[in-house]
């Protein structure tokens, strides 16, 4: 494969250019310099996520993350935002199932200020009642908007089908009924119980010396005493779907119907994950949405978007196909997509198709890793899933190692058009 010869592996992030240190309290520092940039990016996570919520408190991890910057022992909401907005910086938090992530950006000379703020909001948030009440009203407005979104409703219904009884069926932003009951005491208790330095990751990438960045992090975060590593919950298993599981959410007055179809996919730690990612690229991403885009958009003209995605997080994230179609074309689009899934799981891709997709996976690395955000995201991803500091340098070799038979094998293992979930939302009537 001569097309890969131009890629200089040494230019990719690796052990020579990434600094990794673990502080005594368990915080992992990661850093990489980029002096061609005037800015600095911080990115990372703590092990506090929606899996730690009780069912009647769904949305609590998200509320806690969104409350952190609404007041601390040192500063009010207004003072916090004045300090960053006045210098054009940003910092934000969001909760996922397993962890709460943060990301921030500032001009390089303001890294100290950004780290001061990060430390303050994760260690000393006060969850002022007035602020939390206001946030709850904003979350409820977002949920009312979500109720009207065909894509979001189809996705929720899909998760309900493939994760029946599993915590992945619960949306991270909760439900109206659960969020309504959350008070300031809830995020305060959640923070106290689950926000710990052990296992926290802080990655700094940009126009600062990496040793100085490390010292800046250590100086601020070293005295946050660990009270044990945050607990990573065991996920319950999920049963393989048997038969076609179908749901439809009727929403009046919508011009387009959204459909989500698929199965639970492999977690990132599954040895088949990367082969499945290649199969997914062939199925619904390569070029303009891969085979599904060719058939549903280009040939049949049924949809503006029709693509597949594979999440691959800590647990069995979804492997799904999403399309937005005219309500009258819904059934036809579903059948075309199922046909492509069947093809994918019964016939090996051609050597050319495989090589095209391998070339795409490898060739796009320089573009993905161009920005500070891209590099920080890649380093944090490697840390999160224990892929190793040399992962991106090994990656071209790993991608090239797969054969057409590997692709068929993983497609067969996961994609089954007769045993899957199909959820839609729009103005169509409920299917029989």
């Amino acid at each position, binding site marked *: 494969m001569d*097309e890969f010869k*131009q*890629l*200089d592996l040494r*230019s990719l992030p690796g052990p020579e250019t990434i600094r990794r240190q673990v502080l005594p309290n368990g915080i992992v520092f990661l850093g990489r310099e980029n002096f*061609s*940039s005037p*800015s600095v990016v911080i990115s990372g996570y703590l092990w506090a996520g929606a899996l730690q919520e009780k069912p009647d408190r769904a949305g609590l991890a998200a509320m806690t993350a969104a409350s952190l910057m609404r007041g601390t022992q040192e500063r009010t909401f*207004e003072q916090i*935002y*004045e300090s960053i*907005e*006045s*210098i*054009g*910086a*940003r910092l*934000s938090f969001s909760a996922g199932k397993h962890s709460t992530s943060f990301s921030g*950006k500032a*001009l390089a000379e303001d890294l100290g200020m950004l780290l001061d703020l990060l430390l303050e909001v994760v260690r000393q948030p006060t969850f002022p009642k007035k602020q939390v009440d*206001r946030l709850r*009203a*904003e979350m*409820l*407005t*977002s949920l*009312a*908007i979500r*109720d*009207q*979104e065909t894509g979001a409703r189809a996705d929720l219904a899909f998760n309900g089908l493939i994760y029946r009884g599993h915590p992945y069926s619960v949306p991270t932003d909760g439900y109206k009924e659960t969020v309504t009951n959350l008070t300031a005491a809830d995020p305060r208790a959640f923070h106290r119980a689950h926000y710990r330095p052990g296992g926290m990751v802080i990655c700094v990438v940009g126009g600062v010396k990496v040793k100085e960045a490390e010292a800046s992090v250590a100086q601020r975060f070293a005295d946050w005493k660990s009270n044990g590593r945050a607990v990573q919950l065991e996920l319950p298993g999920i049963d393989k779907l048997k038969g076609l599981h179908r749901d439809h959410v009727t*929403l*009046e*007055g*919508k*011009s*387009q119907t959204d459909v989500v179809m698929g199965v639970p996919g492999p977690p990132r730690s599954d040895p088949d994950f990367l082969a499945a990612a290649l199969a997914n690229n062939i199925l619904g991403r*390569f*070029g*303009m949405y891969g085979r599904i885009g060719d058939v549903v*958009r*280009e040939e*049949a*003209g*049924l949809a*503006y978007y029709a693509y597949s995605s594979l999440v691959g997080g800590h647990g069995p994230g979804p492997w799904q196909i999403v399309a*937005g*179609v*005219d309500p009258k074309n819904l059934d036809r689009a579903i059948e075309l997509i199922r046909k492509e899934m069947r093809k994918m799981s019964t016939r090996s891709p051609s050597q050319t198709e495989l090589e*095209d997709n391998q*070339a*795409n996976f490898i*060739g*796009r*690395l*320089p*573009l993905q890793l*161009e*920005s*500070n955000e891209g590099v920080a995201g890649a380093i944090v991803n490697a840390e999160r899933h224990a892929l190793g500091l040399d992962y991106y340098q090994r990656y071209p070799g790993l991608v090239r190692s797969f054969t057409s038979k590997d692709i068929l094998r993983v497609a067969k293992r996961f994609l089954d058009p007769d045993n899957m979930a199909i959820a839609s939302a729009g103005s169509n009537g409920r299917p029989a």
Partner: protein
Amino acid sequence: MSGAMLRTKLRNGLEVRLKEIHTAPLISTWVWYRVGSRNERPGTTGLSHWVEHMQFKGTPTYPAGTLDRAISRDGGFWNAFTWVDWTAYFETMPQDRADLGLEIEADRMANSLFEAKEVESERTVIISERQGAENDPSFRLSEELHAAAFRIHPYHHAVLGDKPDLESITRDDLYNHYRTYYVPSNAVLAVAGNFKVGPMLERIRELFGPIPKAARPVYKPRPEPAQPGERWVEVEGPGETAYLELAYRAPSAEEGDLIPLAVLDSALSGASNLGFFGGDISNKTSRLYRRLVEGELAASVSGNLTASIDPYLYSISVTVRPDSTVEAALAACDEEISKLLNDQVREEEVAKAIKQARALFAFSSESITNQAFWLGYSEMFSGQEWFETYLDRLAQVTPESMLEVARKRLVPSNRTVGVYRPNGRV
């Protein structure tokens, strides 16, 4: 890390902007055409956006489907945008593959096929794109609001076009639009990245030089008459959430009022970016956020001011909280705006707006793709000087000039008020 820059024009009229950047092994190629929904007439609205779609549907050299494959195989990224004033295409490629981007752009500037079969298949895709947008209440409100704010100027209609037009536009309508506006003299080619200016220009001459010269199309839309008074438009639809949008007639990019209005927007609704690419800053210290969101009337508020060829709109969008009302949110907006009409903005607020703009400018210039964007963007509504002098002009804004602009622009007779009222049906 940035090297030489070059600004030149080929004999056929194609403007070329080159910038060496040696920070990553990438090259980004952009072609900008001075055509958008502003160049459309009733009956064939949506033509420019549909032409953009057809530019991905093949030429004799690159038949439909092969372009995506070729770009993806090389690890590139490409996309296109249609706006009211312009249409832009870009490819960001690994440096040793960048020639493909140049070849594709030179090829489709003149040779796109617009095959009848592809036009028909794309018709349903375009209608599907519009249907997806219609699912969003804020699109429906915005479309009605523009129609009310512009009675005769083509900013009246959405870039996506009106559905009856999308159903009736013919292959020849599309092809004629393409042949009229996709000529070298109506385009700017901007390339940034890891190359040497000399050989790059030579290659551009080889690829784009042979494209025949054609007169730059002249299209002067009917100017919108002065607004005789406040307008009001209401949209009803499903859901539980009400939206409010205030759209003031704004100055064009070349009018002196634009930059003071951008600083007013920063004070009112948060850092203003005039339609730039990339970069964002939260707006929680802006006057309207404090009044509306902290005042528990709204879940969010944002402002939008875009540089445009003809006077366009400065709009303020509010998502109203279910326990509040559109009327209460509007009254609060009006009180905040009246403060700008009665008192000068404090020097600190002006200084903050300028700092935010500088940071946004720095962040949005970081990637090679964005740098190439910058080379062409301001050419679409003004010239490169507009971009080069932007920060200096911003620094010259004073509280006095802001007061003057506020009193001229932010008055009720200069605006259209749009309201989305949910009917409670789900």
